């Protein structure tokens, strides 16, 4: 289900270490050791983060290469930003209609004020 995928994506993105790992992978493939380097955490902890990212489909890991390098997958990120874009669009659209209704109300009030003169 798309919504489950999105929940996984958002949960994976909620952690700053995982976001840093993704930022690093945006520059190209890297091994677990390379990814662990900038962080003051164990290789095991990095592996756990990688599993979360992998489950969310944000990264893939080579199955056959000896060092199993990780690579960034951008599709889930696209769909995450996609719903935000659509949500923004709905509200932008609503507010444009609200603007028109507010205009109408203002004009009506002015007419009523003139009517009282």
């Amino acid at each position, binding site marked *: 289900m798309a*919504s489950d995928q*999105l929940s996984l994506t958002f949960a994976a993105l909620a952690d700053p270490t995982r976001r840093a790992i993704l930022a690093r992978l945006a520059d190209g493939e890297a091994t677990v050791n390379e990814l662990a380097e900038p962080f003051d955490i164990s290789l095991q902890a990095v592996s756990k983060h990688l599993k979360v990212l992998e489950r969310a489909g944000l990264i893939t890991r080579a199955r056959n290469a000896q060092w199993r390098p990780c690579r960034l997958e951008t599709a889930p990120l696209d769909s995450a930003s996609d719903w935000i874009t659509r949500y923004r669009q*709905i509200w932008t*659209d609503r507010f444009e209609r609200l*603007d*028109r209704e507010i205009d109408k109300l203002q004009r009506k*009030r002015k007419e009523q004020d003139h009517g009282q003169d």
Partner: protein
Amino acid sequence: MAKTEFVIEPGQQDIVIKRTFDAPRDVVFEALTDPTVLAKWWGGPDEVEVDRYEARHGGQWRFVSRDNEGAEWAFRGVYHDVVPSERVTYTFEFEGMPGHIALETVTLEESDGKTTYVSNSVFQTVEDRDGMVQSGMQSGAEASLDKLASLVEGS
């Protein structure tokens, strides 16, 4: 054109929307809380039936939105507080996902004849926020976009 500001952080369970309207806040308040006006802007291209609307402390609201194929989506909630021209606090629930309830507060602040609208929606979990946003959008989201496109292209 007025700009709408959205704060939707990954992994958080809230959404903040800010927008300035070129009108005093009592007018904005009327547009937000008069059910006949509300029905005109809230639903997009879908027909919105205001089934229940009691904008007062403890009052209930329920909107049913219908697309042109007859599909229906209903939303409901209870007003916690209504302070005229200043603040409205209510719960929001998509009936398609019962039990997943958000608490929404809309505040209006006036300055130089313009009104700043701020809405703050807090969901029970991050998953609720992301899931509800998605399901809420199914209520004619695509049709809304179509309508917007036709407005934009028509002008």
